[in-house]
């Protein structure tokens, strides 16, 4: 059986390639349909068909192949050089940085964009990667820290782009669609550009093959084998970023291929460096080719609204999920180096008190200080009374949502014993978005009760799927994260596809995605705060379970914990918390990831203390973010998650870089 597996996988990829070829043939045939009768001169319509064929249909097929291959190669290089199975152009923020640079360019320097599109994209991508490397250099580019920093920066860049798009209204709505990666072509130019970059990248990768193989070892071994460590590393990263940025410049953000192609190559049995170097670009190319074929097939007569870049996850996500449990030998040793253990505070209660005071101060700030047409103002007395009706609900919603997300993050990190688990990363937030989408489309005007039920159902389903995967034998933390990212990408693809339809529901979803408490009224506030109080009050009951579960199933079972039952209960709980919060502040706040880490790094180690600390930090963080979101760009409302990431991210990275790695 084991011997036949690689054969099966070769068949799988061969089958997909044939499918893609068939789809392409159908498209090409559509334009060759009527062979001109012998002797008759070609009609105008025939000429038009021929022109479309040579200048749109064929280039589109070619560009999907070269872009997929370039992204596959870029992901492979980044994963290798950073020794990080989750590194790729999207998780490292290359695509997001390039997109932000281009959005800014389009708005403020259109002339520059016209001349140096690729340069702008490359500058954005390099700036983001440089930032991430600088932040995590002192941690020795440790995978967990790099991914945390990368996702934070990528999220910030995406949010900033979304904010610019929202602030400029319909004018830039097409950028959003482009942001999803639209492969429609008018010439061979982009294909040739990317193909050239791909060839250069491949040549560089072949030249650097030996140093690359050694870079897979740890730094000390690499240095002792005489590799110029940093020079090689920067050269490889430069090539990878260049590939990804040029793809972004030519066809937009195409997520997921860079992550999935190398992982799928590995899962399909490519073991050596040279095998992977061949397999990853090929798989990337096939993946994008098939996806684009399907997108065109499904778009049919309505004209196409679903960006291919978003749809890659629809195909690649399930593929990755299907392959993940089917392979042994897939654990990278790297992620097992957890973040270094933090010191424990000798006075946890005092610390919690200080955090609570800071949270209260944040609430007071958000309630009293505002920024209006006349500049900053401090509201007191009767003015405050009038403003409270507006500001009170917002602050309450923000605090309650932040608290619930933080609690959900703490639960998930402890259930899975995985420092990177959080509602955002395991796709729970986007899962609740899919539930919400279903409610919006199936029911004309769903009430709040139905909305929350639908998004909770989405979140719980998502978590249940993750958990079912993680319970399989040998499903380590990396696989769980990969599965979570695949699921998350899948759900985002669904959301993007729906948003791209441009219906009123789409705008509702776009607003939801960017997370805003702008419309929060008293009813929302009561509901959100009530949910938070009810759910959080139940949390201390589980504190003993949460103390034991991080030690793993074996230990938990041997001290008599009913492991399955605990898991199911806690997962339901985390799903409810996430859904209730995400309904009001969107799925991308990052508070669920950051707050538990902040509490832990601040010195709160035990389950109860960490839980209380995380809840308070989450609430405070969200209140301050909300305040900044409404004041910084007045009269515009910026996305909430942007500030949550901006506020806590750098502090988290600083804390991570300060703690010394565990000895031995």
């Amino acid at each position: 059986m084991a011997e036949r597996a690689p054969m099966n996988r070769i068949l799988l990829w061969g089958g997909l390639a044939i499918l893609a070829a068939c789809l392409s043939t159908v498209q090409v045939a559509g334009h060759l349909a009527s062979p001109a009768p012998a002797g008759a001169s070609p009609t105008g319509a025939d000429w038009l068909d021929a022109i479309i064929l040579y200048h749109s249909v064929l280039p589109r097929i070619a560009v999907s192949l070269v872009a997929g291959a370039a992204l596959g190669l870029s992901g492979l290089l980044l994963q290798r050089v950073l020794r990080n199975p989750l590194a790729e152009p999207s998780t490292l923020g290359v695509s997001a940085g390039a997109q932000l640079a281009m959005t800014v360019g389009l708005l403020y320097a259109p002339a520059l964009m016209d001349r140096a599109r690729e340069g702008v994209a490359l500058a954005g991508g390099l700036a983001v990667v440089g930032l991430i490397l600088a932040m995590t250099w002192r941690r020795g580019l440790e995978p967990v820290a790099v991914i945390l920093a990368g996702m934070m920066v990528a999220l910030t860049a995406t949010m900033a782009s979304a904010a610019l798009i929202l602030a400029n209204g319909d004018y830039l709505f097409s950028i959003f669609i482009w942001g999803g990666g639209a492969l429609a072509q008018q010439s061979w130019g982009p294909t040739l550009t990317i193909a050239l970059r791909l060839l250069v990248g491949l040549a560089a990768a072949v030249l650097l093959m030996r140093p690359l193989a050694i870079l897979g070892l740890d730094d000390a071994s690499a240095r002792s084998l005489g590799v110029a460590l940093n020079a090689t590393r920067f050269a490889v990263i430069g090539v990878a970023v260049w590939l990804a940025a040029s793809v972004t410049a030519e066809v937009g953000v195409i997520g997921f291929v860079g992550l999935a192609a190398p992982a799928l190559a590995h899962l399909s049995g490519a073991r050596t460096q040279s095998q992977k170097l061949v397999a990853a670009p090929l798989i990337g190319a096939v993946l994008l080719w098939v996806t684009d074929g399907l997108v065109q097939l499904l778009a049919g007569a309505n004209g196409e609204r679903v960006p291919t870049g978003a749809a890659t996850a629809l195909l690649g996500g399930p593929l990755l999920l299907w392959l993940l449990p089917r392979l042994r030998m897939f654990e990278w040793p790297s992620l097992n180096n957890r973040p270094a253990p933090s010191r424990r505070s000798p006075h946890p209660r005092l610390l919690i008190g200080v955090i609570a005071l800071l949270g209260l101060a944040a609430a007071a700030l958000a309630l009293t200080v505002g920024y209006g047409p006349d500049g900053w103002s401090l509201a007191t007395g009767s003015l405050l009374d009038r403003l409270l009706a507006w500001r009170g609900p917002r602050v309450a919603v923000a605090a309650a949502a932040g608290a619930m997300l933080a609690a959900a993050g703490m639960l998930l990190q402890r259930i899975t014993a995985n420092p990177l688990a959080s509602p955002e990363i395991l796709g729970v937030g986007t899962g609740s978005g899919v539930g919400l989408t279903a409610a919006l489309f199936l029911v004309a005007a769903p009430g709040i009760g139905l909305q929350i039920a639908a998004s909770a159902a989405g979140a719980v389903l998502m978590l249940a799927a993750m958990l079912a995967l993680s319970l399989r034998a040998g499903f380590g933390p990396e696989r769980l994260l990969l599965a979570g990212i695949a699921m998350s990408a899948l759900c985002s693809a669904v959301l993007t596809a729906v948003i791209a339809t441009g219906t009123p529901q789409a705008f509702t979803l776009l607003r939801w995605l960017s997370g805003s408490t702008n419309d929060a009224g008293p009813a929302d506030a009561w509901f959100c705060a009530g949910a938070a109080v009810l759910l959080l009050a139940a949390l201390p009951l589980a504190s003993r379970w949460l103390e034991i579960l991080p030690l793993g199933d074996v230990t938990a079972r041997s001290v008599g914990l009913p492991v399955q039952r605990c898991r199911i209960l806690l997962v339901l709980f985390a799903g409810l918390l996430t859904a209730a919060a995400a309904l009001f502040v969107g799925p991308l706040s990052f508070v669920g990831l950051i707050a538990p880490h902040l509490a832990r790094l601040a010195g709160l180690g035990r389950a109860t203390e960490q839980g209380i600390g995380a809840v308070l930090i989450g609430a405070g963080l969200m209140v301050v973010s909300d305040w900044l979101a409404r004041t910084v760009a007045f009269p515009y409302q910026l996305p909430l998650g942007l500030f949550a990431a901006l506020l806590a991210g750098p502090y988290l990275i600083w804390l991570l870089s300060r703690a010394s790695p565990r000895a031995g």
Partner: protein
Amino acid sequence: MPGPDHTPALYELDAVGFSAAGRPILSDLSLRLEQGRIYGLVGPNGSGKSTLIRMLARQQPPGAGRIRCLGTEIARIGERDFARTVAYMPQFTPPAEGMTVRELVALGRFPWHGALGRFGAEDAAKVAEAIAETNLDAFADRLVDSLSGGERQRVWLAMMLAQDTRCLLLDEPTSALDIASQVEMLGLVRRLSRARGIGAVIVLHDINMAARVCDEILAMRGGALIAQGTPDAIMTGETLGAIYRLAMGIVPHPVTGDPIGYVL
């Protein structure tokens, strides 16, 4: 409660078998382990020792046959009841991130107080006793991660003692320890087992170490029990040769006179 004249066996195995991916790992194993005795489980790699001890610990259900613990089928015992009877230390103990020694040891009281019950005076006393018995008093408030390998292994032993069980199951508790820590660890297990009158099953690679601490040795090969007996009965060149498929001999210990095995 055991009857006045008839004590049930700690474990009774009846035709127990297990196979993974079509390959038999254990087949048709029947044996009886008495209470209060120390059993050493030896055998070459892949002989099924770890699988057997994981089944005894109920970490893995048997593929065939029945296992009874103190007269009751183990699948029918509730989680916490089972954890009050049997404590298990896996081959690789997980990192106890951010936990102090006392907190980790206190987790051993979970089967007694449960998720919501009060951590009472008796629990605190048992934890203090376990820490004292494993000579960890000086480390009680240190982080577990900051201890050496031997000290960390003692912490996990203390957690098992706090569990206050009738039996300890240890899967290669000495594999990562230096010789002094090995002697200390196993000496501790033997002393505590005697003092508390509880049984123990220990998977060991070092046959001489097993002969030193165990009352009885169970030797496995290829998923079957090939020899069982006191150390004196097992420690012959012939039996050791059959276990490890290696020419081995025995010399008497120059001081104690106990048999010591060596490779020819």
